[in-house]
């Protein structure tokens, strides 16, 4: 038997500084996410495999005029944003609600904005790593992005809008459905958008009726926007406005309906 350690249990309450709380929360989210095999599979492995396979996609699907790798790489970047900001965020948040983590943190000094910004921080950091790795591999495979720094700026704008739109939709699902249902819906939507959401295949390759629907979806707008960005033409105003409307409407809806318990 060791003698019990003396602890000064007398009250000395207080919150850590906002910066310290936000840093701790972001770091914790990030650690848990990178530790989780399924999340790494979803956010890194699948986009990488699709990028490598996609470079040969023209043998199976007609992606239209232009070099295959130049068409595929921006689409993979869009897919990476979808996987992190929507699927991964929705599933993680669904289970956090289910296991009482949001409740537990809700009883701690961490404010709700801290919880939200911790999530946003972790999503953004993962996205930066995804975009760097996937663009790097794309470049190694011969991707030739045009547009220079302007294109980089346009990409940042589209990714921010896309993340806001998909992230809010993900939280909307996680805040409304049970954890298992969230898991199912988030994965299903991911697969549907991956296959037919205008992410990877240029909208011009879809039948006209489908194209009119897809260009109104955040997936179609983000995919097409990024492809247009790296041809050097830049995203159309229409694409950008579609993403902006999704981002604003979805975040307003989630702020009204999200239940923290």
């Amino acid at each position, binding site marked *: 038997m060791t003698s019990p350690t003396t602890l000064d249990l*007398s009250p*000395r*309450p207080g919150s*850590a500084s906002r910066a310290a709380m936000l840093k701790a929360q972001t770091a914790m989210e990030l*650690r*848990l996410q990178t530790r989780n095999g399924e999340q790494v599979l979803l956010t890194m492995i699948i986009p990488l495999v699709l990028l490598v396979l996609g470079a040969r996609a023209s043998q199976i699907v007609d992606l239209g005029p232009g070099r295959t790798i130049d068409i595929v790489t921006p689409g993979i970047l869009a897919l990476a944003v979808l996987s992190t900001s929507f699927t991964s965020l929705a599933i993680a948040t669904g289970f956090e609600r289910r296991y009482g983590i949001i409740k537990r943190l809700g009883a701690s000094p961490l404010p709700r904005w801290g919880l939200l910004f911790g999530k946003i921080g972790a999503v953004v950091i993962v996205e930066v790593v995804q975009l760097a790795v996937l663009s790097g591999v794309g470049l190694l495979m011969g991707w030739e992005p045009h547009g220079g720094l302007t294109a980089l700026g346009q990409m940042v704008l589209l990714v921010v809008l896309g993340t806001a739109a998909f992230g809010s939709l993900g939280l909307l699902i996680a805040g409304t459905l049970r954890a298992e249902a969230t898991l199912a819906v988030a994965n299903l939507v991911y697969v549907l958008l991956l296959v037919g959401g205008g992410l990877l295949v240029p909208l011009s390759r879809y039948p006209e009726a489908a194209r009119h629907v897809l260009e109104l979806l955040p997936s179609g707008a983000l995919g097409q926007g990024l492809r247009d960005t790296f041809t050097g033409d830049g995203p159309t105003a229409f694409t950008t406005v579609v993403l902006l409307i999704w981002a604003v409407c979805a975040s307003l809806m989630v702020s009204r309906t999200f239940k923290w318990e």
Partner: protein
Amino acid sequence: MGVSEPVAATSARDVPAVEVVDLVMRYGSTTAVDGLSLTVEPGTVTAILGPNGAGKTTTIETCEGFRSPHGGSVRVLGLDPVADGHLLRPRVGVMLQSGGAWSGARSYEMLRHIASLHAHPLDVDALIERLGMGSYGTTPYRRLSGGQQQRLSLAMAVVGRPELLFLDEPTAGLDPAARRSTWELIAELRSSGVTTVLTTHFMDEAEALSDQVHIVDAGRVIASGTPQSLASSGSKNTLRFTARPGLDVEDLMLALPHDTKVDEITPGAYVVAGAVDPQLLALLATWCAAQGVLTESLLVERQTLEDRFLELTGKALR
């Protein structure tokens, strides 16, 4: 913050730590809490005791600010737990009845994270050692046993050095040794000036730990008091003694408080029924001395809180 803390500490002494008045909480058409009132004085341990479904968790979670009252009012440290939640959360430690950690987070990591949200947390290593959590410090939460999860949950409640603690069934699922050490920690927190409100359906826990017990059933407080007063206020307290047969029980009854009844049930075996307290014992001893009677055996059958609960609610606790 540094300036506001002493002010908060002084004001905490002037107001009740918790004041619940006529609380009503409903889930759909079910009324979980039905006009419940209780007050918790600073520096005390208060047990809310009742069977499952009595409204204990709903009451405590309303005090924690998780939901707004449907009727009545709740004040915690003089503040509104919902509107002033941001002011209360740093000052109040919470142990949820279950869950509250990421399944992939390690115990140590989880505790360290909660500590990092506070300004002056306890030393995490020392707390881990104190609670005997060292052997599973690096185990992910999902692999912990129920009892280990409970310990972690308790550690997360106290690590921020709160002035008020809400513990929802702190010893459910613990083995006797772990239960005993949780009791010791709660007693130590009390002597360090922390106010504790806990829910339990263990009678012995309420009796051993608390200054004040509120027995709750069907969403209402049906009895309140110290564990001793609650147990002895029932009707079943008796005192048995043996002495020579044929004592004058009528005369003895005159010497005792008027609501006390004495019977010689078999020759030489006497039963005294009434409010058995030290005064009664002294009066009995005085009467015996005056009569030259030596009591050969004397047994106080004090009603336990458990008996009292059964008597009040007509049902067993678990």
